[in-house]
């Protein structure tokens, strides 16, 4: 208790704690949720190169403009101009109608239009590529349906002929295909865990740096377990509050899908905080030099965004990396989140990942002796 009270004093006296434990995490929560507030990027700039310029091509252009993701911002005189605009990042895609498109279409000589999209931004490229493809396919379907209705077929017959097999798409739990729901739920906890890593290491390391390590141990009656537990307790309370605030804001206020239920989310939040703290203590115990352990923790935290496998799946990485990914707490956080909270499966489905997170939380046990020795004997090396 003594140690905890002492730790509260330290937390209050150094401004950096206030910023890293409260201010920055809150900024992060608002940053990501407001940045991707649209869910899917809407009205992205697209160009048109219309060498034909007839009622048919103009109507196709209008239809494209009406799509949710697309907005026609410019008309170009030729392909080179449109390509240059794409290189300048002014448009992400364009549609090209060669001269004579309508003529050929009416006389059944199969004209060919082209759709160009830039994959320099994969999100924009994928969404716009999809829109443009739909427009081109609709163009074909339009001709077919006009012909068939002229021949006297019913609407039902026309759809059955033009699209004998239709795909019913079910995007489970995220029917809006919202990137906010998809990305924010991994990025924000990842950032909070990054701060936990660094603050844990920083708070233990500065004891050594400012020559207070013996005082710290003395306050705990020379028991390293009490010392560490006392030190971590106030930090734990602050971080779990931030974590719960995140859960409350994102799943409560913004109402992101969470069929897993409140208790599962709270359990996951708890696991995230203790596993990150455990990992931080372990890292410092392993390398009782503030600089080395902080560098390693920042490397670990930043890489974990990639290795969590939320953006690019882990099973598509090389097998060595696939194995390495298991060493990152955020990976397990993401797995438990998506299996149990997002998809609402019962907890045993993610037993391995939950066990791994508990394991991370228990890691400090192995290095306690080392940590004590470091605190008593080591001197701070810059």
């Amino acid at each position: 208790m003594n140690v905890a009270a002492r730790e509260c004093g330290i937390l209050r006296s150094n401004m950096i704690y206030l910023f890293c434990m409260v201010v920055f995490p809150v900024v992060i929560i608002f940053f990501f949720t407001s940045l991707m507030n649209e869910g899917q990027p809407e009205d992205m700039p697209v160009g048109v190169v219309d060498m034909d310029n007839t009622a048919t091509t103009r109507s196709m252009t209008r239809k494209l403009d009406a799509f949710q993701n697309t907005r026609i911002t410019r008309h170009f005189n030729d392909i080179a101009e449109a390509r240059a605009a794409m290189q300048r990042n002014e448009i992400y895609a364009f549609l090209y109608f060669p001269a004579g498109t309508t003529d050929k279409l009416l006389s059944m000589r199969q004209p060919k239009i082209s759709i160009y999209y830039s994959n320099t931004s994969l999100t924009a490229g994928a969404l716009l590529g999809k829109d443009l493809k739909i427009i081109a396919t609709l163009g074909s379907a339009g001709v077919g349906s006009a012909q068939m209705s002229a021949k006297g077929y019913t609407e039902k017959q026309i759809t059955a002929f033009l699209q004998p097999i239709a795909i019913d798409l079910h995007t489970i739990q995220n029917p809006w295909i919202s990137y906010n729901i998809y990305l924010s739920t991994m990025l924000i906890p990842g950032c909070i865990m990054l701060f936990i890593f660094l603050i844990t290491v920083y708070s233990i390391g500065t004891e050594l740096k400012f020559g207070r390590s013996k005082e710290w141990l003395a306050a705990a009656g020379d028991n390293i377990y009490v010392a560490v537990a006392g030190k971590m307790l106030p930090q734990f309370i602050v971080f779990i509050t931030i974590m719960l605030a995140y859960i409350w804001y994102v799943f409560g206020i913004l109402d992101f899908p969470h069929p897993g239920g409140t208790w599962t989310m709270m359990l996951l939040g708890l696991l995230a905080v203790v596993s990150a703290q455990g990992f931080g203590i372990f890292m410092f115990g392993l390398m009782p030099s503030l600089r080395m352990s902080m560098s390693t923790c920042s490397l670990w935290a930043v890489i974990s965004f990639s290795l969590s496998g939320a953006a690019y799946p882990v099973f598509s990485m090389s097998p060595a990396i696939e194995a390495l990914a298991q060493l990152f707490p955020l990976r397990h956080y993401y797995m438990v989140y998506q299996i149990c909270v997002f998809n609402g499966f019962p907890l045993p489905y993610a037993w391995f990942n939950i066990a791994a997170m508990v394991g991370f939380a228990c890691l400090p046990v192995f290095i306690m002796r080392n940590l004590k020795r470091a605190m008593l004997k080591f001197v701070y090396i810059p």
Partner: protein
Amino acid sequence: MKMLQRINEGLHDMCHIWAEEMKNVVRDEGVLIFFVLVPLLYPILYSWIYNNEVVREVPVAVVDNSHSSMSRMFIREFDASPDTRVAYHCNSLDEAKDLVGRQAVHGVIYFPQDFQTRINRMEQSHVSVYCDMSLMLTYKAIFQTASSVAANINSKIQTSLSGNTTGREDEITIKPLDFDEIPMFNTTGGYGNFILPGVLMLIIQQTLLLGIGLSAGTAREKNKYKELIPVSRHYNGIFRIVLGKSICYFMIYSVIAAYVTLVIPRMFGFVSLVHAPDLVTFMLPYLLSCIFFGMMLSCLVRYRENVILLVVFSSILFLFLSGMSWPSSNIPGTWKAVSWLFPSTFGIQGFVSMNTAGARLGDISLQYICLWIQTVVFFIMTCAVYKFQIDRVKKLRSREQ
């Protein structure tokens, strides 16, 4: 004459500070880690992670209640597609759902009992595709493959129904309006090609911020008055300090930047369409603005390790502010304004345009000019910070005397 003498003395002091700073960097292990080790190894690690570029053979479960030749054809073609594979055949949707929970599959295809019957009756038939939305890339792979398999089978059905005489007639029936789909720049749609150029530029900025901050923190801890500059007769002009230090950083980073922007893409075969003169002209203001930005911020660093706390988390923010993942046209105005404060925003946008889309310097003049503006502004602010520091040291010293 006096003016000339001052300039001469200034130049000498500048070189002295330059040499001092260089020695400090080499001696300080922490700075060396961020200036050399991280920029050397981090890009390799990232490239290795994303080297496979695309997602192939996503496992999918199939529930075939139709058991017809048509559904089997669909399944065969779906399995044969490069992006997906049929991993399990299930008897019910519940069974398939269980497999999703166990992470054995990332999606389910469901054929209703009347799948082929409806086609034979000349009615529209439906295939249901269920996707696990926790991974966008697997969703994309499953949905796109299913759509293209369906389109392929549809055209077979159409040709068999329409009773045309020639192959050309069949082609026109299927597609009266033909189209070419051309993904430009990063033609493979690879994830590495997309994210890596941005990450590379960000690594340059972040390691500079970390290294400069760390060495400033050390200086503060070592110096007599806990200020940024030591008490020495060489350190009594703003420009000589700022220029001397920045030349040292610039020297190191000219090499690092060349390695990061040219060697790494070639090592891993990523897209690299930069023109040498453009790259050099562009990197000059980028490095300078990053250096002055770092020196300006370094006045905030009281203890050396604090800089890690301040800089590391911002990497993720900077990457998103640059408009890599979330297109820059859709970043809300407030955040866009914030993004203009950091060199990385323009650096990443400009470099991606040049590296991936093969733009020339003239195409990215906006980013280029903004970087120069930032360089000037940050330089002036750095000078102001150091002026403040010099004045304080002088005041403290005179009080002591």
